[in-house]
């Protein structure tokens, strides 16, 4: 058994733990370093760790496209889609968790199975529908798609949170004279604060990282950071440093958000099965 507190084992734990983590996130570290190199340095092994840092790549990337527009579109669409998904998913999760029927489990799995469908299979129908509704390259169009895509996850996460909330409390509220809205407003929503936060966080991350629909359904007005990075996926010439800079810009916001919110994320992702 491990002996907690022994200094030699603590040192060993320190080395092993940090070595493993650094190895795991090395691609991110390396990308970060590369983004500050010149294109020539990015290719030379000699300049791996010791190099003259430069901000040129960031300047180039920022000059070439309006990063802020892409970033704002990412924020706007992922937040709006998440709110919408919560709005639609919340009552559904409530009803399935607190008033389950014999079909509930089936319904849930069906909802989840819609996530397994490859989006590319329905691209052309969606494109045609969106064209007719004027939704191509609109925030609304992207928000709706993101909402559809994340609704299953949102419903599932909320459902599993709700299952941990004793029904007694809701019944008590009902007896105390709360109607459905008051039950939500004063009891369920305050109680599921962490649940809503973690669900929202995961949903935002998934929307943020969604590439297929962003690239195929946006042109300029609603294009997100996923579309932004698509410009750098194979630019001309030496491009590793510029690619790294663009990649850092694209993932930084959500990475920081993830770091801050990860504690809340667990309960949501695990569907309440891990305490």
């Amino acid at each position: 058994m491990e002996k907690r507190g022994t200094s030699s084992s603590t040192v060993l734990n320190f080395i092993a733990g940090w070595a493993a983590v650094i190895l795991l996130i090395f691609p991110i570290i390396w990308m970060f370093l590369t983004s500050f190199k010149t294109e020539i340095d990015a290719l030379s092994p000699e300049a791996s760790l010791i190099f003259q840092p430069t901000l040129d790549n960031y300047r180039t990337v920022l000059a070439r496209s309006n990063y802020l527009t892409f970033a704002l579109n990412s924020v706007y669409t992922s937040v709006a889609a998440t709110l919408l998904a919560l709005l639609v998913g919340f009552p559904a999760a409530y009803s399935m968790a607190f008033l389950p029927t014999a079909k509930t489990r089936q319904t849930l799995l069906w909802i989840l199975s819609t996530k397994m469908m490859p989006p590319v299979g329905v691209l052309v129908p969606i494109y045609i529908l969106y064209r007719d509704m004027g939704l191509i390259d609109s925030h609304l169009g992207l928000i709706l798609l993101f909402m559809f895509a994340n609704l299953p996850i949102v419903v599932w996460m909320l459902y599993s949170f709700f299952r941990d909330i004793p029904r007694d409390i809701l019944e008590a509220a009902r007896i105390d004279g709360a109607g459905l809205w008051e039950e939500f407003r004063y009891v369920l929503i305050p109680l599921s604060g962490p649940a809503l936060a973690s669900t929202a966080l995961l949903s935002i991350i998934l929307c943020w990282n969604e590439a297929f629909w962003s690239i195929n359904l946006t042109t300029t007005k609603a294009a997100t950071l996923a579309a932004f990075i698509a410009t750098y996926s194979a630019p001309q010439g030496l491009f590793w440093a510029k690619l790294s800079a663009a990649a850092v810009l694209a993932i930084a916001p959500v990475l920081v958000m993830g770091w801050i919110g990860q504690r809340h994320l667990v309960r949501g992702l695990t569907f309440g099965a891990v305490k």
Partner: protein
Amino acid sequence: MNSTSSAVQHGIAQMESSTRAESIGPKTYLVAPSVAVLLVWITVPTVMTFWFSFQHYNLVNTAGREFIGFANYLYFFSSSSLTIAALNSIYVVLGVIAITVCLGIGLVLLLDRDFTGARIARVLAISPFFVMPTVAALIWKNLLLDPVNGLLATVLGLVGLPAVDWFGTFPMFSIIVIIAWQWIGFSTLILLTALQSLDHELKEAAAMDGAGAFATFRFIVLPHLARPIGIIVMIETIFLLSVFAEIFVTTSGGPGLASTNLSFLIYVQALLRFDVGLASTGGVISIILANVVAYFLAKTVSRSLEI
């Protein structure tokens, strides 16, 4: 004891009542918005996809669409690409799950211990999960695995090993590694939380019973992780069946069909050949497969998770 048994009784009462719809109090109609939204989202494009799958419909050919019955289906089932792609889809799911679970367990065993900065290390370890799949694939393809100037080639060169053409020689393996890297963050997150909830008294009790480190792991830790592993299996299956970006960025499904999964097969039909008819056929087939998988998940994993 008394309270436990009455709690059980109460639970039974709740279960009984919970399996029936109530006429008093909130109704199940609340589920309607979600189901309706998803039904529309699923049904409308699916019906269109279904309709297109019986047509000869090529975007770049204006000769017009015509109804051709099951010809698209015959094409799909007669070519070996469907089998290969379906197998590759399964390889991705199995491979990534195997790697993320095994390495994830190893990693959390290290991270669960006390050391300076352990909390920061734990947060950092989850980072790959937040990285956009396109970005992850681009970084791995160029900066790391590039056989000429990539970091790995340089490192191998230093120890005198020849460069390896990862995407040409081991396409599926390389793709699985990239995807697994992203999802290790996820499995770590869940396994770590589970492990930290493991009662230390339990480990101490095992130690008093004379269990060694391995026995403790085998008989105490591993059973405790069974449920979180079940969750990892389920979630990853759901997400990995439609993996696309990583393949698109790295191998374009090749060489040959070596790294084409169902998603990518449909992509090739839809956006490289612009053959909407065939792509729709692939879409229909994959919808059916998704439901089969969902059925099996329902039978196995989700049951054991009591979801």
